[in-house]
């Protein structure tokens, strides 16, 4: 059962191995804090949609399953949007249009269709947590590379007297701006995908 959780982290990482959800992955990964916020939103929606799709798998008619999944997913996304705007307005402002776009994040519909509608609630919860954390992990790694090189900072949550921004000496004054742009996102994504594929190959050969 535990492998339902761990598979999403590296072996079937949704971004680097299955290559799903690239739009938000590349769009918000300019800063580490945005990646963490997006990741938290996706984990919540994925968890909610997987639980409900799994619970309702015998109730939802086969012919209208996709509209039914979209209603469930869109409801959770709208809840995330309203709760985030009310209680985390700074994060809501910084994620902008990417919060409502979680509805069309293919990882969520993909997991409903490929996993939750065939498996138990318990397995679907573990799958959602694994895939959600795998997505968050991928976003944070991409953002870490892009933010360190592209802006010369690492932006985390502000806590007490710490304003949340770690400045990297040397890079803060002359950052490599291309990393912050769309071209840099694709470059970093490509290199990291190669790295993950290489790790996966080594693992497979060892087995």
């Amino acid at each position: 059962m535990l492998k339902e959780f761990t598979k999403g982290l590296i072996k079937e990482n949704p971004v680097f191995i299955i290559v799903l959800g690239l739009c938000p992955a590349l769009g918000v990964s300019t800063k580490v804090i945005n990646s963490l916020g997006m990741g938290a939103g996706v984990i919540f929606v994925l968890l909610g949609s997987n639980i409900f799709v799994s619970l309702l798998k015998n109730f939802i008619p086969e012919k209208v399953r996709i509209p039914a999944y979209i209603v469930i997913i869109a409801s959770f996304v709208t809840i995330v949007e309203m709760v985030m705007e009310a209680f985390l307005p700074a994060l809501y402002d910084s994620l902008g249009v990417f919060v409502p776009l979680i509805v069309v994040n293919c990882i969520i519909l993909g997991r409903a269709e490929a996993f939750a509608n065939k498996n138990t609630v318990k397995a679907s919860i573990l799958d959602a947590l694994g895939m959600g954390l795998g997505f968050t992990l991928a976003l944070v790694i991409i953002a870490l590379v892009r933010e360190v090189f592209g802006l010369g900072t690492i932006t985390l949550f502000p806590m007490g007297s710490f304003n949340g921004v770690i400045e990297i000496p040397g890079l803060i004054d002359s950052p490599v701006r291309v990393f912050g742009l769309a071209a840099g996102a694709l470059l970093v994504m490509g290199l990291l995908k190669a790295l993950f594929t290489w790790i996966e190959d080594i693992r497979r050969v060892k087995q």
Partner: protein
Amino acid sequence: MKEVMKIGGKLAAICAIAAIALGVVNAITEPIILAARAEKLRLALSELSAGLEIGEFIKTDNESSIIGYYPLSSGEKTEAYIINIIGDGYAGDLNLLTAISNGGEVLSVVLMEDTETPGLGKEAENASYMEKFIGTGNGSIIPSSKSHLNAKDADSITGASITFIGIGKALNEAAGFVSQLGGM
């Protein structure tokens, strides 16, 4: 027919439950969101007014991108205006509040709402982004093209030129509007 009704009924039931859940969450979060927006507007106005007295909001009735304005006065005399204007951003509207003196000088700018790309266009939400516009107008050009900026400022908007142009054009329009109003 019976089959279609059954399928439609099940889908309608799912939609109805979703709608109820959303209604409950909305009832809880809406007052908090409205209070936060009102507070954000109050803070922005107090920053933009720079100690001057803020008059009543006057809505413009034409269909231009200017929503309305607040006169800023010291004593009897109107010294400047806070203009609420909508600019064209990269991914939607840019809701701006800008204080402009009677002479057409941009005194300060705040981006209230936008749907720009995080890390690129969204940088315009930072107060430091607006420094390139402050003090312009009243004889000098309010920048609305990269060629109006020095190399460092031009570099800082790389990847988000459309946001910058949207703000620049809106500020030019706001300054033009203030010159029409005159020092009423």
